[in-house]
């Protein structure tokens, strides 16, 4: 029961960070600021959500799968953020010349 409540709280806080990231994506002025909001908030949101779901998981195998999902989604979203930021910087450099 306590574990369920804790999991629920973690998932709720995770969802809050996703919402905050989405608001940042919609409200911030340029691509780099938006990226900043999105990657930070999503990273935290994903971690908290995975933690909450892992607490609810029944077997060790499920926990391992959730950890793997967390690892690969977190890594790929960080790499995506890097690629977008890199593209923005190159486009700005090309435009400034």
């Amino acid at each position, binding site marked *: 029961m306590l574990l369920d409540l804790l999991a629920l709280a973690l998932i709720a806080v995770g969802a809050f960070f996703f919402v905050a990231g989405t608001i940042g994506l919609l409200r911030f002025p340029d691509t780099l600021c938006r990226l900043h909001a999105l990657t930070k908030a999503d990273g935290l949101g994903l971690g908290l959500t995975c933690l909450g779901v892992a607490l609810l998981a029944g077997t060790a195998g499920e926990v391992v799968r959730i950890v*793997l999902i967390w690892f690969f989604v977190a*890594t*790929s979203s960080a790499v995506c953020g*890097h690629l977008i930021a890199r593209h923005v910087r190159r486009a700005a450099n090309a435009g400034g010349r």
Partner: protein
Amino acid sequence: MVEPLLLFDALLGLAIVALAVAVLTVHDRFAMIVLFIVFGLMSALAWVRLSAPDVALAEAAIGTGLTGALLLTTLHHIRAAPAAPVPVPGGVVVANLGLCALIFGGLAFAFLLTPLQAPGLAPAVAQNMAASGVGHPVTAVLLNFRAYDTLMEVVVLLAAIVAVWMVERGTVQAPAPVLGEIYRGFSRLALPAIVVIGSYLLWVGAQAPGGAFQGGAVLAAVGLLLLLGRLYRPQPAHRPFARAGFVLGTAVFAGVALLVAGGGRLPFEYPAAHAKTLILLIEGMVTISIAVTLAALFHGREPEAVPVSEKSE
């Protein structure tokens, strides 16, 4: 009693319809593709809610992931060679509208004619599961009871790559973007994991959601990562291997059917003792073909004898 997830389902349905409208009405091509990818992800979620995880996996891997990648790479090449937009002839618009109306009418007709609450073929499948050689009903239908349909799907994929290699022979290709060291490091990290996940999806398909098409699509992502990171560059000398990969699945699939038919049985009437082995053999070979074909579709053109000039990295 109201289902607790009814609100979620209603919102999901509305979101899918809204996304479909947005895809068709938005003017920017890039936004169109991104919306289409989101549309595919929401559809996959809808399939999960309809208790069809096999379709959800296929929708997410092929309908969303790979189709999105194909659309984006096409956009990349279109942007590199800007041509004046050719106005679509009125006759084509009318013909398209007519065909769409025909398909919609056919679907509506079939939907209205289907009796409600009918058991369908599910009991027949459940009765014959023991003879199928696998433990997952979807795989039993796809690879055993209705294997002929699946063979035709594999042939469609083969025809697609033949057409792409023919058509794209003379087209100008934009140089691929240089993605840098971090991307390369990521692809080195992700590649082994994708190979494991794709093989797992293939293997688990005998007992649980998964199978050749889902596994093949995930394995095709290996090809995409290699091509994007330029860890692999297609060479003209590799064409025979690629061709062998394209036809492998179709050849083994048809070959097994003919061999089985040669023993005085119907095609695809596998001997019960060898059913699982034969199904896994077919699925394994079809998976390789699907992965190679989808990756080649992403690359687009046939590797040419003259190397395409590329930007220095």
